[in-house]
């Protein structure tokens, strides 16, 4: 069985930041492996260790800079990586679900995996829609927000979907399928030193849109980001100032006033 894992490098934002136009100014941004994808990678690697998967391949849409993040996934045990990028993507201010679907679908079709694991959402733009959209596009089955996958996969994946309010749904999904992976499904490993060394030698295949047979016009975003701003705070929060001793004592007084602590 072959597993394809979608891996995204997400932008992280410092506590204090400034917005320039429709973007956060570069100097306040960092980069990290998407939290949800980390769990997806772990699940795939565990399936490989359990002898169920023969190969784990990652796919990323992103420029060269994100190769450090892809190497993290390789260091955790993925066998090889595909990275898709094109200069034409440089100028779009939002890569929307439709565009991601076109690109990832082309890679799914080329790789022909039995299972695609994708994070439930990306920590930066949090559309939470790409996995299901890709599944529909390539004619795979799917399950969104999966927090448990039985590791005795045959033709079906027995999963738990985490619903709201502490309820889980037990579902059987025919393969091939796309599952969007929720945090908590496993415990993502840290890359070992050996893994990090090995990752340097693993194949990282760079593809352009033309290489994967996607026309530029197909990935034109339907959505245009027209404004970005800090949310207007409706809060009338009382901020306690001073040393930790002072603020702790303010909180102490509040708890006594409310009668919840003595």
């Amino acid at each position, binding site marked *: 069985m072959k597993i394809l894992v979608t891996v995204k490098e997400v932008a992280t934002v410092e506590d204090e930041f400034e917005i320039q136009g429709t973007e956060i100014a570069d100097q306040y941004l960092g980069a990290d492996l998407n939290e949800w994808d980390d769990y997806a990678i772990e699940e795939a690697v565990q399936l490989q260790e359990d002898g169920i998967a023969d190969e784990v391949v990652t796919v990323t849409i992103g420029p060269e800079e994100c190769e450090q993040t892809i190497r993290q996934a390789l260091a955790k045990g993925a066998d090889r990586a595909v990275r898709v990028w094109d200069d034409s993507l440089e100028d779009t201010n939002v890569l929307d*679900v439709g565009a991601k679907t076109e690109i990832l679908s082309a890679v799914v079709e080329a790789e022909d995996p039995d299972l695609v694991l994708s994070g439930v959402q990306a920590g930066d733009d949090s559309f939470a829609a790409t996995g299901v959209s890709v599944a529909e596009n390539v004619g795979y089955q799917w399950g*969104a927000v999966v927090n448990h996958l039985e590791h005795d996969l045959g033709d079906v994946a027995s999963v738990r979907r985490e619903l709201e309010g502490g309820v889980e749904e037990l579902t059987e999904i025919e393969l091939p399928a796309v599952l969007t992976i929720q945090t908590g499904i496993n415990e993502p490993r840290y890359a070992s030193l050996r893994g990090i060394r090995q990752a340097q030698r693993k194949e990282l295949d760079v593809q352009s849109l033309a290489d994967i047979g996607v026309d530029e016009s197909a990935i034109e975003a339907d959505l245009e980001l027209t404004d970005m701003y800090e949310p207007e705070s409706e809060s009338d929060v009382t901020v306690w100032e001073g040393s930790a001793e002072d603020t*702790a004592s303010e909180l102490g007084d509040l708890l006594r006033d409310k009668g919840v602590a003595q």
Partner: protein
Amino acid sequence: MSDILAVADHRRGDLRDVSYELVTAGRELADETGGDLHVAVISGTVDEFAEKLNREGVDAIHTVSHGEEFNHDVYSQAVTQLYDELAPQYVVTPNSVNGLDYAPAIANELDLPIVTDTIGLEADGDTLVATREMYGGKVETTNELEGDAVVTIRGAEWPAAEGTGDAAIEAFDADIDEDAIGSTVTGFEEVGGGDVDISEADLLVSIGRGIEEEENLDLIRDLADALDATLSSSRPIVDNGWLPKNRQVGQSGKVVTPDVYIAIGISGAVQHVAGMKGSDTIVAINTDPNAPIMDIADYAIHDDLFDVVPELIEEFQ
């Protein structure tokens, strides 16, 4: 004149609150597009649901009787057929776990753009302006798109529709292709039971990722002991296996309503806030003065938890 099609959510015999909020969002959009608001309810006791959804502002309700519970293939087929029949401008669904299990699929199937987790919507002619958050709520963005679209709405952002409407309730005869159903729900399970019921507590000391390491959790346990409070947490703490699932506050955890909720090192992501915003008094201890939790906190300490918590323990020992 362009119509709106809103698809209700229900589970185990109950309509979910967001379904009534969806009616409000859908009505507002229909007023802007000058069209009708159509509501669809699929599977389960649809007639009973239709009566409940018949609130002010709903023009038509379409019931699709097929199976008991949510199945994304049934929903996808029913909604795409309704779309073909009604030709609405926007299909609107909740941004719920189930909404996210079929809305992207119908968008793709119908070749429509999708914009998820919206917190504000405005339609002007052919243009939709959708407001949503990025970076865990640190910024808000407006997003424009032209033409028809699928939109999912965040729960608790629109008020629930009230009153009684005079909608035409009609059974929609969807042609469900059983062979195209590739997944089967076999059951449900409640998780997170156990020794402590955090929803009963008067005082919750709740810890988030700011605690950094499992060892540091002892500090928070000491605080809970000193205050005689109950310990709860945000999701990452439970994901890491540092606390059991029954301590998780939030959308996929428990809803809590204590007299005082102390959020320590918790950013206040929407899924967390969903579980604790009903607390009487909210106190946030967080180094980031702009963390989203500040929007709902009554009192805040913008400081390092490792400095503040020991002081607080000392006060009560």
